[in-house]
Structures are given as structure tokens and as C-alpha cells.
């Protein structure tokens, strides 16, 4: 092993470690499709409940939302969290897809809860 390699080896190991932690190392790998499908179904169910009580948030699944930037075929597109989940799933990146589906689900649950908390809203004076 030459001196240069000796110097580089720990660095490369570190980069690989960081890459793995950041999810870079899994690029190309698919993640878990079944887990994504479940997260997506959960998100839709939560958002439908929020919708029923008028509690949907802007960036969960509204088609005009610009909350998440996604690279689709070389172009940057802005979309809702659920749309981002679907876009990543289409590209086979189920790990990211699941992350965004989980955000959409959280927003559905929280929007529903908020509407319930506000059931008796009225003037406070």
C-alpha cells in the first residue's frame, strides 16, 4: 500500500459511512415497496378523514402545492408531499417515497385532530 492510499483509506471509509447514514449509499436500491404501499394507503385514509371535517392542510396532497421539490426526468418539479411520495415510488426509490407518504399521513392526522379541537370555535370576547 503506498502512502497516498494510506492517507485516503480512513477518509474513504468515513465518506462511505456518512453516505450510508445520509441514504446516498442506497441510491439505486429500491427500499421496501410493501412498506411504501402501506404508508401510502395510511396517508390517503388519514387525509380522507381530515377532508371530511374540512381540516386538510395545504401541502399534504393539494395538487397546486409547491412544498416539495422533486427531480423528475432531469426537471425540478414542485408538488405536495403525497405527490412527492408517488413520484419517488415511480422512480423506484421506495425509501424516499415512504418518507413523504409518512409526512402526508402525519398532516392528515394532525389536520383531523385540529378540526376536532376546533369543534366549538367561536368568538373569545
Amino acid at each position, binding site marked *: 500500500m503506498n502512502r497516498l492510499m494510506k*492517507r*485516503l483509506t480512513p*477518509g*474513504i471509509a*468515513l*465518506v462511505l459511512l*456518512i453516505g450510508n447514514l445520509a441514504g446516498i449509499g442506497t441510491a439505486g436500491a429500491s427500499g421496501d415497496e410493501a412498506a411504501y404501499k402501506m404508508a401510502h394507503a395510511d396517508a390517503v385514509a388519514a387525509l380522507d378523514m381530515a377532508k371530511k371535517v374540512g381540516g386538510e392542510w395545504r401541502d399534504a396532497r393539494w395538487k397546486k402545492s409547491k412544498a416539495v421539490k422533486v427531480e423528475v426526468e432531469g426537471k425540478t418539479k414542485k408538488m405536495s408531499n403525497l405527490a412527492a411520495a408517488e413520484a419517488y415510488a415511480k422512480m423506484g426509490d421506495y425509501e424516499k417515497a415512504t418518507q413523504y407518504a409518512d*409526512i402526508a399521513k*402525519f398532516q392528515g392526522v*394532525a389536520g383531523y385532530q385540529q378540526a376536532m379541537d376546533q369543534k366549538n370555535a367561536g368568538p*373569545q370576547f
Partner: protein
Amino acid sequence: MTINQVTSRALSILLISCISILGGISVANADAVSDGKKVAFDRKKGNCLTCHMIAGGSLAGNIGPPLIAMKARFPNKADLRAQIWDPTHKNPNTIMPPFGMHRILTEKEIDLVTEYILSL
């Protein structure tokens, strides 16, 4: 970025984390305060200036109280963090958004903002 640059950057990250771990809280805290300020001033994140006057911020609103002497107002850091996380807990009618409960900011970002606000 060449491999050499990557290596040196990785090493410097390692070095900085070592210093902040070994060298005590002050370095890490200074970073947290300046990172927290960025989150606080970002219009898509904390956007605190919409409602609060903060030294060094321009075009501040006056809906909430000016953010000064915060250590005196919140001797306990956890109380300030809780107030940012969900101000409706103390006052259900407040106009202040629940930054943590509604995940407007991440938990990490709330830690940073707390450090920054406490430094005011």
C-alpha cells in the same frame, strides 16, 4: 470535488466534532446560536420576524412581544423550548403556530432556535 478535498473535508468535520465534544459546550453553542438564527429568520421556517422584534432583524412585526432578555423570561431552557414547540398548550387562543407539534420545524431546528432565542 476531488477525493483529496473530500478527505480533508471529512477530516475537518471529524476534527470539529472532536473539538466540540472535548473542548466543551461553548464552541457547539456558538454554532447552534448562529444556525438557530438562520432558522429563526428564514421566512419558510421560523419566520419569527413576522411577529417579533429581534435585534439585527429588519421589518419586524409587533404581534408578539419583542424577543429581548430571554434568559430572564425563561430561566429554564425546557420551558422556552416547550413554548416554541406548542404555544397553544399554555394559551389555546394564541396566534403563534405550534412549530413542533405541527412539524413546521424539525426537532433539531427547534433545539437550534431555542439556543438562539435564549441568547437574545
